[in-house]
């Protein structure tokens, strides 16, 4: 399955929120949309979900204009919230049935997910009695209970502790393994880096960077090396290239990418003790800051 957004424009009054964005997501791979607060992530997601219409542009599923009636979406909205005063099991079954499931299947699926997220003990409690993090998990069950083909998660990690974040990460990976299409937004780079193959950076309503995360990194300047060793000072003093120590590594700036082998020869010939040498790749955070910095 392929989800395409083409040239989407959206304004709220004077505020031009999305300025002709185009995105593409495919089954089995996660697309992470990154952006600072107010960049337009949630607006883009709400347009995909049909919460409100776009002013211009089109959305396609497998090349055909989207028909939301025939797609099983799983949606985790940014604004979390269910029925605080209702029994958890009851409302989960209700939401599953709204998605078209019959009661038996709904109950079965709800029980499966409650179990998967270690929430079975709360099934007969009212939602409001749960902690915020646990309420988030219930909300996640609402998203996944109908076994959706397209999973849209708006800031899924906000409010989760590291253990629960790991749980969510595992679940998303399982869904991807089942060839589901996962589309999510976040400003928490570490999670995105963990399992997103494709990213799009949204800044002030424009896509400023879009593509495979590894390719993006590979396209960066590869003339910087990162060296791990027991005695960094010794290496620093014995090499010709400009270098500095950062944390537990030595960063070496080559004159050009082609000098890599020359540098390796130097290490070998000078018999310097090295644990690891690799090309320095910017982290997603570095890339993100680079592309969105001017708006800070």
């Amino acid at each position, binding site marked *: 399955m392929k989800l395409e957004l083409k040239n989407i424009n959206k304004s709220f009054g004077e505020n031009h929120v999305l300025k002709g964005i185009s995105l593409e997501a495919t089954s089995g791979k996660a697309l992470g949309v990154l952006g600072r607060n107010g960049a337009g992530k949630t607006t883009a997601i709400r347009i995909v*979900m*049909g*919460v*409100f*219409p776009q002013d211009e542009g089109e959305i396609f599923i497998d090349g055909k204009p989207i028909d939301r009636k025939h797609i099983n*979406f799983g*949606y985790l*909205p940014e*604004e*979390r*919230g*269910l*029925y*605080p005063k*209702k029994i958890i099991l*009851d409302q989960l079954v*209700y*939401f599953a*049935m*709204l*998605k*078209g499931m019959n009661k038996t299947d709904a109950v079965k699926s709800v029980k499966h997910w409650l179990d998967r997220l270690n929430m079975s003990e709360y099934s007969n409690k009212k939602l409001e009695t749960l902690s915020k993090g646990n309420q988030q998990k219930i909300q996640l069950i*609402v998203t996944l209970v109908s076994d959706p083909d397209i999973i849209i998660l708006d800031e899924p990690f906000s409010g989760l502790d590291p253990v629960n974040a790991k749980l969510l990460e595992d679940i998303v990976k399982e869904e991807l393994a089942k060839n589901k299409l996962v589309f999510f937004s976040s400003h928490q780079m570490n999670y995105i880096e963990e399992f997103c193959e494709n990213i799009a950076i949204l800044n002030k309503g424009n896509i400023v960077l879009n593509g495979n995360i590894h390719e993006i990194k590979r396209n960066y300047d590869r003339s910087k090396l990162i060296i791990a060793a027991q005695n960094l000072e010794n290496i620093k003093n014995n090499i010709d290239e400009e270098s500095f120590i950062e944390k537990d590594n030595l960063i070496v700036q080559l004159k050009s990418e082609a000098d890599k082998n020359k540098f390796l020869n130097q290490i070998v010939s000078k018999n310097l003790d090295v644990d690891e040498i690799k090309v320095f790749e910017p982290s997603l955070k570095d890339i993100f800051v680079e592309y969105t910095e001017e708006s800070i």
Partner: protein
Amino acid sequence: MKQFFDILRFELKGYLKNKVFVVVTVLICLIIAISLSFPRIKDMFNIDSSAKKESTQLEKILIVDNTGENKQYLETALSAAMPNNEFVFDNKSLDEAKLLVNNDEYASVILIDNPTSFTYLVKNLGMYDVTSDIVKEIFKTNYRLNQFNNLGVSPQQSQSIFLKDIDVTTIETGQNQMNNFFYTYILMFMLYMAILIYGQLVATNVASEKSSRAMEILITSAKPTSLLFGKVIGSGLAAFIQMGSILFSAYIFFNLNKAYWANNFVINAIFNMPLYILLYCILFFVLGFFIYAFMFGAVGSMATKVEDINTSSMPITLLFIIAFLIVVMSMSSGAVDNTIMKISSFIPFTSSMAMFVRICMSVVPVYEIIISVVILILSTLFIGYISAKIYRVGVLLYGKSPKLGSLIKAMFHK
């Protein structure tokens, strides 16, 4: 359609599982059961209560008769007319009498100046105090008897002249408004309460889904028409179940205690209402409820917080209260077929009550009823459609309320 029924079931279950709803319904049924069984219960304790009555002191009334002529006559007549009072004859001045009444030594004082005038002294004049009227009647009769006597008519003759009553036969070709008034009033009042209470509940329900942010999930999972219709019809059924249980318990307990109420005109008038009235009541309740509940739902969707509901639903509530007042005023004046009622019975916002009352208390041509019902059905569908549109737009608006123009534009955006 499956979605609509899922929503309907969920909403209805929400009411039926709500403790307040259950407790209130049971409580009202219980109150009705006890009230209707009251004469039977009273009978069971009758021996005790009659014993109690003797021990309680009779209210004392002081009679100051300055004419000094009527003591014997007054004593018999007063004791016969007011058996629960004790009458004391004594000579006091006006000031002394005032003091006695003020100190609660006597419930009241009657100062007789001459056979055709007296002064009635009482501390607080009660709303239903008829003592002076009774005394006045006694004086009047006494005066007439004396005058007739002076003219040579014997007391027996004048007595028979006084007591002669006129036989009246009334044949209603239409409705007996006196009989119908009570059940019409009760049914209309139930209609009024149910629409207002449940309408407000629909509004609160929608607004709380919005403020708890469950709305975004709902609106992306289900069609807005299913959501609004499911909610409104679910609430309607809950109201219906509540009203039904109340009426049913009233019916059961009236029949159980029928013998005890044989002489009560009001109660008998209520429970002997014709079946067609009840059916009309159900029809107008359903239609009247939906037209208002849809509007309340739309209003609820526009509110940001549950607290806003009271102010934003004010126009609808006022419209409804005005309709209620028009009908009640026409009812109590007896002129249920006046022009304003005739007009009101074709306006969808008032017709559920106005037409219902006219059917109960007057004779309305069938074609008028049909026209009124058709207008009401069509308007209900139209209001339902518009409300679903407003609901779709309203539920996702947070913060300030939208301007009317942009709202209408958004409503018809595909």
